[in-house]
């Protein structure tokens, strides 16, 4: 699980330009500090799909709130 979260964190840093210093596993992604928006959600969905084989298309917003919630969703929906 932690490995998955680290992988997600690395993705946020390299692909979405997020500064790693302020990104904890429970940091709100769509809050003021990180400021993700709908374009970023598309990138998250695409990353999760191709790296973990889990589709998050159309999934409720609360699952995208933090690295923790995304990882939890992936964990519970893995084939």
């Amino acid at each position, binding site marked *: 699980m932690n490995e998955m979260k680290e992988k997600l964190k690395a993705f946020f840093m390299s692909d979405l330009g997020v500064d790693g210093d302020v990104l904890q596993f429970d940091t709100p992604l769509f809050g003021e500090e*990180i*400021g993700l928006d709908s*374009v970023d959600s598309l990138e998250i969905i695409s990353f999760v799909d191709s790296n973990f084989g889990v589709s998050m298309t159309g999934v409720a917003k609360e699952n995208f709130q933090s690295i923790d919630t995304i990882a939890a969703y992936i964990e519970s929906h893995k084939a």
Partner: protein
Amino acid sequence: MTSDDKRCVVTGLGVICAVGNNVEEAWKSALESVSGIHKTTSVDTVNCYADLAAEVKCDSLDEIDAPEEKDRVSKLCIKAANEALADAGLKNFNDDQRVSVVIGSCVGGVLSIEQYHQHGRDASEIAKMPIASIASQVAETCGAGGIVTNVANACAAGTISIAVACDLIRAGKADVVIAGGADSFASVPYSGFLSLHALDENGCSPFNRCNGITLGEGAGIVIVESYEHAQKRAAKQYCEVLGSGVTSDANHITAPREDGLCLKEAINRSVKNSGIAKTDIGYINAHGTGTGKNDNAEMTAFKAYFGEENPTVSVSSTKVLTGHCLGAAGAIEAVFSIKALTTDTVLPTFPYSEEQSAALKEKVGDMDFVQNKARHKELKSVLSNNVAFGGTNAAIVFSKESGNVSAQSAKDCKIAVTGVGIVSPLGNSKAAYLEAVNADKKPESASVHSTIALDDYKELGIKMAFYRKLDNLGLLQTVSGMRALQDANFKVSDENAMDIGIIVGTSEGGLGATYDFEELIAELGNAGGSAFKFPHTVYNAAGGYLSICSGIKGYGVTITTGPLSGLDSIGYSMNVIHDGQEKAMMATGTDENLPIITEFAQKLGVAANDVVAPYSDSEGFVVGDGSVSIMLEDESYAKSRDAKVYCYALGFGHGRKNVKFGKLVGSDEALDKAIADALADAGITAADVDAVCGFANGCKKIDDIEKGALKRVFGEKLATMPLFEVKERTGEGRAGSAALAAAEAALLLSGELANDNAYFVAADGSVSAKNVESANLKKILVISFAAGGSYSAVVFGK
């Protein structure tokens, strides 16, 4: 009534799109409600959820001079331009300085980028890549020798080009303008819109299903001519082009504002500048892309603006015919709008079932949303509007009547330079630049670039939530723009956000980002595009980010012509202020040096191997970059807020002698013309000029052009006249360097730069250098160039 000298008329039309290779065919399709949307045959659709496009089918695109030197986008544009010129009864202009070309585009020569990347990195592809090649190659084809430029505001570019054409004519800078837009369908935009989930797998259905767009391709050309010129040659006149309006959302890089506020203001400006009533508009050709966000925002803006005064105005989107042709959209839709106006026809959006019509009725109320079939309606004036990535909104009015156009209403105002923001390989502030000059710094290698640091964000209060989204070009532009605002002590507020605009000048714009995107999808396939990266491929993203960061909501245009774009941004900004469109303008020049940009320069044989100085008779130059932003204000506006004044922008001029795009040699005399034009515009003579900020970069071919023209213009005086050459410190930063030369002039005239190294050209052509004090300099000429044979000049004075 609009005075005759401010009237602009349409004298020729040309189009090529999925439903016709000329105006007659396309118009017939429009009247018969024929859609050009089919399964795509030109891009790979493996694993892609949508596979429709509206592609051009035409066998004769190569029937032009040197087709191998042109990208498909230029071929489409030349085809439409030739039709429009023939329709207008015009042909080869023999470098006539009164004939201009303004072409809008979004992705430019993207197919040549793909070709270069996937097929052997052939140097012959490079000159076909930038958007700047399009207008230049159209000008070369027909011998247009006036201002030749491209508007790069993505999906609003075609509309803005026609607006700029009218601005040039009304400012007395041109008699005839070949204006329009062109874009070709390709993997990069296809994959990009797929990644945004913005394509409708069933084909676009504007204002109806609203599931997304379908991409198209093509070109539209409108010959805009001064009324007096058209009358003199007894030309057929389709209609008048009245006012236009351009605004920026300052909200989101891809999505329009939900409240349609700034789109409404663009429409308001176009009608107001036309001097007509809201009720005079009988038909609106909407942007109507088919995305819910666009269509809802547009409908909101229409209702808010036309409201109870003109509740039954007819509206439709013609994108079911042509697909979304991006930078060509506004131009093709202008052709449809003009045909609609002159034949008293309103065009439909289709297909709508009875149930869908009923649902639409709920949405649009009394508005006459035209469905399924074209029909007759007496029309006096029509409006066409487009919106774009970067938050650009544009609207323009075509009319059977001459209206009461407001133009050049502030012609007599003096234009003050009130702020400077400098990002260069020397550092990211004016202070860093001044320090580097005082230390006589030179480039550290033959390829140098600017680097934005965390401290820059901190000093400017830019949050990570914002800057993380930006690509390199956007970062350079945002930091230099915010520095200029800070330097001018200009606080953007709700009250003044619409009083200030931005013109970004760039030579390569998003070319580097487009190349990156191409690399990505070549590896992952078209289904593997990045929604995060795709917006950076549009050239106006950098200006859009600056608008979002600063809150500037007025005029917002990105022009791309080559290095001189960094000076043209100043010249056009002067015109926007003189036109009374804005009180203040941020004029910028921005280009980046990514590894691929240095690779292009090396492949073209213009990159030096070692650090070279201007006038060193070298074969190449140091590849550099930078972004410089300059605040210009109506003097009275600047004084009302106690702004510090560096100097005044006194005059702007241009010259062109057509040579092939990618070349410069043979066009020398056009620089003389640009200088003479700028001096005349400033009301001074060569004798009044105290110094020149030039464009020499060390490459002999380029430096000799500057030397030769200055010798012809200034004669013996040249031997004692200082030439300041900013590229000796930053390398060739294209538009960034052109704007830096302007900033250098402002710093010298204001005394902030007390002295700098200057070059002197002796009568025998030999060059020496010495340090010169700025105290006695009162008027400085700044010059720049662009491949294809264009030159610009701006005069600054104390």
